[in-house]
Each structure stands twice: as structure tokens, then as C-alpha cells.
């Protein structure tokens, strides 16, 4: 029987994992250790600001056993969406951490570094050729949006990673990658069914989130065979159930069983999820078809404003009864105070926790609790203006009158001194499109380095 074993240490590099689970996984002699280091979930700031999701220290802590274990047992290691958003700055940051570990542990590795940054000139040309289309509910791409984006990355499929493995890389550090690609690349390279490999990759990329209890902070092992795969939890306290694995198949996806990726569509409607052994699940019936044209997802982020906030609590019952009139009144007062500025030059946003801050106008329940957490947010074109308006809104709200007022000394219990917090730039995903490519690798640049 043909079999390939894939070890996933955790759901996101830097989230952490128990050493015992990882060791247990290593003892099964996996063919590859793969880990996803990125996500768009935390919003556009990582790509815009070039920042990571996790700390350098956390990345180092997670990488050390992976690099040392892989080196010792001669198992290839593949990291996808390095550094969080997978742009050059993120990949180089990851490589710094890796080089530090390799030096200290006296390892020696043939590494492939795959950059996913997309050249603006290339995109302008593709746009002129009508080869770029929106992905979901976003506007058509414009030349101005391409120029406004601080960074633009392409989401690679398995092909550039397979190319690097083909060149003998023991460590592949990939920029922005389709989440399952680091897991599916080696199996596809070795001739396993791409549909099963990608479906397994989709499950493994979140670590033990497909188990019960689910978590991204634990290791999980996948066994890929000719016509099925098995996922197995590595911690005694966790089990993979057919329901938990099936449920994970539809996690974070727009459709439960039709999943689009670079160059293919997965159809999981005919899948069977069956219990296997003590804590494993056997999955079969995954199907995939190549799309007519190969499209790569583009992600770009631009800076749109600056933000300043304050956090305060409100406890007086009459004040809580009047909270909507007060917030409206404060906003009107600021508009009046800053009448020389156009209304479009800044925004004042009240977030009333305990009332409707989470759901906004969709909140089905009307009555607030006994206290309300107020986050007042001002966004404006400069940090100075955002802070000035936030300060004015703060002092206005602190002493704002309302009918029946008994707590006449002040309306807000500020959490901090100073109360106002400048938050820096605000970003937006201004590129979220598909570009049609001739070659799946044409957007990506691979560099081979000996790391020691």
C-alpha cells in the first residue's frame, strides 16, 4: 500500500503546540512537516504595515523543534504564508528567525525561499489585458488601486513548492500560499491523488482544530493513501470524530463542499467520513477538477486613515437609558465645533459594549445591561486630527447633559490615564482579485540558499 505521512505541528506557526504531541508525530516518521504561518483573518494591517500576527519569540519557540526534528530525521519542512501575510518583509523576517536557530543549533539546510510579491507593472499589464477579475463582492480593480496598495501578494498553489522540492530543498519557506498547499505539495509531487491531498491539506492546515476538543494549538497527523486518507489526533485528550472532521471541511469557506483553489475546484459532496481506530477518521470520495483557466488570488492593502480611541465605562442607570441621545448629541456637537471641516474628513464611531457593539444594527435584543463599555473611535486623514477630534469628543461626552441627570460630576469611567490612545494607520484590503496566469509559477520567485 502506498502511503505518505504529513505532520502538522499547529494551526498557525507561533500559536504554540505541546512538545509531547509533536514528538509522538515525529516517532511515526512523517514524510513531511508542514505548517501554515498566515491568515487574512486578522484583517489587512499585517499586509499593509508589514507586521506579523505572532511575536518573533513565539515563532522561534515553535520553529526550533520543527527545524531540529526535521534536520535530525531528514524530513523536509515546508512553511506557507511565512510571517503572517507572506510578503517579502514577512518572509525575510521569518528567514532571520530561521537563520538564528540554524546557527545556534549548528544545523545545515538546503533552503528554498519563495517570494510571492507581485510586480505592479505586471499587474497594470494584466489589467489592460482584462485578465483580472474581482473575487467576491469587491469593485473592479483599477490602475489607481494597484498604485495605492502598499504591498500586493499572490497566493501560490502547490506548483512553486513542488519546484523547490524538485531542486532538493529540505526547507521551503513560502510567501503567501494557498493554506493547504504546503501540505499537499509533496504528496502531489509523489503522484498521490491531488483531490485527496488538497482535502487533507485543508484539514491539517488548522492543526488539531478538526478534533474534539478542537484547537489550533496542537499537532495532528495525516496518512494519505491511494483512495483515502486518515487524520489522527496525537494528544490523548483529543479525538477525531467523523462529525468534527466533516465540520472542519466547511470551516471558513463560503460553500460547504465546493472549494476553489489555485487552478482547481474541489468537490467534496460525495465524501464519506468514517471512524478509524481509537481517535482517527477515514475520509474518501474527495474529487477535484482543473479549472479552465488558472487564476491566482491577489491580496493588496492600502492605508486609508488614522485612528484614535478612548475606552470608558458607563454605570449610571439614567445615563444608560439616555445613551443613544447622548452619543447622537456628542456627534452633533463635534460636527458643530468642527464645522470648518467637511463631514467626510473624519468619522466618529461609538461602540457600546453591553448594548450592541458586536452586532450593531443587526442586534436582535434591545435592552442594555447594567453597565456599558464605551469605545469611542475617531478616524481621520491624519493622526493629529484623529486625536484632536477624539479629545474633543471625550471632553464633550464627559460632561454632556441629559434629562433627569443625578451623576452630575461626569459621565465616563475612563479605563486609563491618559485616556486617549492613538492607534496609528488604518488599512483596507483594496486588492482582492483573481489574475489569470499562463504558468502557475510566473508570479513567484524562488531563491535557493544554503543555511548553516
Amino acid at each position, binding site marked *: 500500500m502506498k502511503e505518505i505521512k504529513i505532520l502538522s505541528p499547529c494551526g498557525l506557526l507561533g500559536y504554540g503546540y505541546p512538545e509531547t504531541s509533536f514528538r509522538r508525530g515525529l516517532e511515526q516518521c512523517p514524510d513531511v512537516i508542514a505548517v501554515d504561518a498566515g491568515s487574512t483573518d*486578522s484583517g489587512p494591517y499585517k499586509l499593509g504595515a508589514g507586521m506579523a500576527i505572532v511575536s518573533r519569540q513565539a515563532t522561534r519557540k515553535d520553529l526550533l523543534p520543527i527545524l531540529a526534528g526535521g534536520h535530525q530525521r531528514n524530513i523536509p519542512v515546508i512553511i506557507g504564508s511565512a510571517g503572517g501575510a507572506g510578503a517579502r518583509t514577512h518572509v525575510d523576517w521569518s528567514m532571520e528567525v530561521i537563520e538564528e536557530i540554524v546557527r545556534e543549533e549548528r544545523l545545515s539546510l538546503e533552503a528554498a525561499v519563495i517570494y510571492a510579491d507581485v510586480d505592479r507593472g505586471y499587474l497594470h499589464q494584466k489589467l489592460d489585458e482584462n485578465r483580472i477579475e474581482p473575487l467576491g463582492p469587491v469593485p473592479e480593480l483599477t490602475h489607481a488601486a494597484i498604485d495605492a496598495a502598499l504591498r500586493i501578494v499572490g497566493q501560490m498553489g502547490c506548483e512553486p513548492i513542488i519546484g523547490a522540492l524538485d531542486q532538493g530543498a529540505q526547507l521551503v519557506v513560502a510567501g503567501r500560499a494557498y493554506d493547504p498547499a504546503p501540505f499537499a505539495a509533496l504528496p502531489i509531487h509523489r503522484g498521490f491523488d491531488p483531490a485527496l491531498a488538497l482535502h487533507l491539506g485543508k484539514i491539517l492546515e488548522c492543526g488539531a482544530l478538526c478534533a474534539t476538543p478542537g484547537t489550533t494549538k496542537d499537532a495532528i497527523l495525516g496518512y494519505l493513501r491511494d483512495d483515502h486518507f486518515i487524520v489522527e489526533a496525537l494528544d490523548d485528550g483529543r479525538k477525531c470524530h467523523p462529525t468534527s472532521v466533516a465540520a472542519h471541511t466547511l470551516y471558513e469557506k463560503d460553500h460547504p463542499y465546493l472549494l476553489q483553489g489555485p487552478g482547481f475546484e474541489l468537490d467534496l459532496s460525495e465524501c464519506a467520513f468514517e471512524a478509524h481506530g481509537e481517535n482517527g477518521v477515514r475520509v474518501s470520495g474527495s474529487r477535484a477538477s482543473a479549472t479552465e483557466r488558472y487564476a491566482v488570488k491577489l491580496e493588496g492593502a492600502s492605508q486609508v486613515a488614522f485612528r484614535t480611541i478612548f475606552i470608558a465605562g458607563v454605570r449610571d442607570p439614567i445615563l444608560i437609558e439616555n445613551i443613544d441621545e447622548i452619543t447622537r448629541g456628542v456627534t452633533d456637537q463635534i460636527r458643530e465645533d468642527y464645522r470648518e471641516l467637511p463631514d467626510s474628513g473624519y468619522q466618529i464611531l461609538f461602540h457600546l459594549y453591553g448594548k450592541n457593539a458586536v452586532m450593531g444594527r*443587526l442586534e436582535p435584543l434591545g435592552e442594555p445591561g447594567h453597565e456599558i463599555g464605551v469605545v469611542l473611535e475617531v478616524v481621520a486623514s491624519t493622526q493629529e486630527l484623529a486625536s484632536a477630534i477624539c479629545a474633543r469628543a471625550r471632553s464633550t461626552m464627559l460632561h454632556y447633559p441629559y434629562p433627569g441627570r443625578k451623576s452630575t460630576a461626569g459621565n465616563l469611567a475612563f479605563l486609563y490615564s491618559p485616556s486617549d490612545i492613538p492607534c496609528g494607520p488604518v488599512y483596507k484590503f483594496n486588492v482582492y482579485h483573481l489574475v489569470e496566469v499562463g504558468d502557475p509559477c510566473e508570479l513567484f520567485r524562488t531563491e535557493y540558499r544554503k543555511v548553516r
Partner: protein
Amino acid sequence: MARAARLYDLATVLRSKNAGPFELTLDVIFDDEESYQIVKRSGVINRELVCRLYRVRPEEVYHVVCFDAARAIKITIKRPVDSGGIGDTDVYGAQQHAPLIDVMIPIED
């Protein structure tokens, strides 16, 4: 007499999450086949309900799909504000399932 149960009580998993920065996806998953079939057959979870609860237009409801193999119903809609954009209140979209909690499902005796 016809009875009814809250969706929150029938479902094992009731969750919301981003499906990319511009879409929100809601999953209703059942441990037992009976509860899944009760909800699926009731037809209560449909496009009109989603439009009403989430104040979106029918064309902004991208999917309301049942997936038998996972005993799951998935709803995907346009996000009111893109993830992390100005005015967004839930960057991961992880707490937007509340309007579904009290949806009542009729149970035939």
C-alpha cells in the same frame, strides 16, 4: 399539538466566521441525524429568513446549502463592512451568529 425548538438547542455547532475579508459564513452543524433532518425538512432556514435577520438583499445571500455528509447547513452572505475596515465590529466575524440563536423550528409529533 405542534411543538417548536430553538435552533440553538437543536444544533451542536452554531458559528460564524469570515470566508475571506468580504464574506461572512454561518455554519449550523448537528451531531444527530434526527435534529439535522428536522431542521433541514422544516425549510425554516432559507434565503428570506437570512435577508430578514441579517438585513441583506437576496443577491447578497450567496449560499444557503445543506451538506448531508457533515449534517451541516451553511449560509454565506456579504459582510456589512470588510474585515478590519472602518466601521467593522468583528474582525474575524466570529460572533455574528446571534440572530440565528432564537430561530424557532417546528417539530412534528
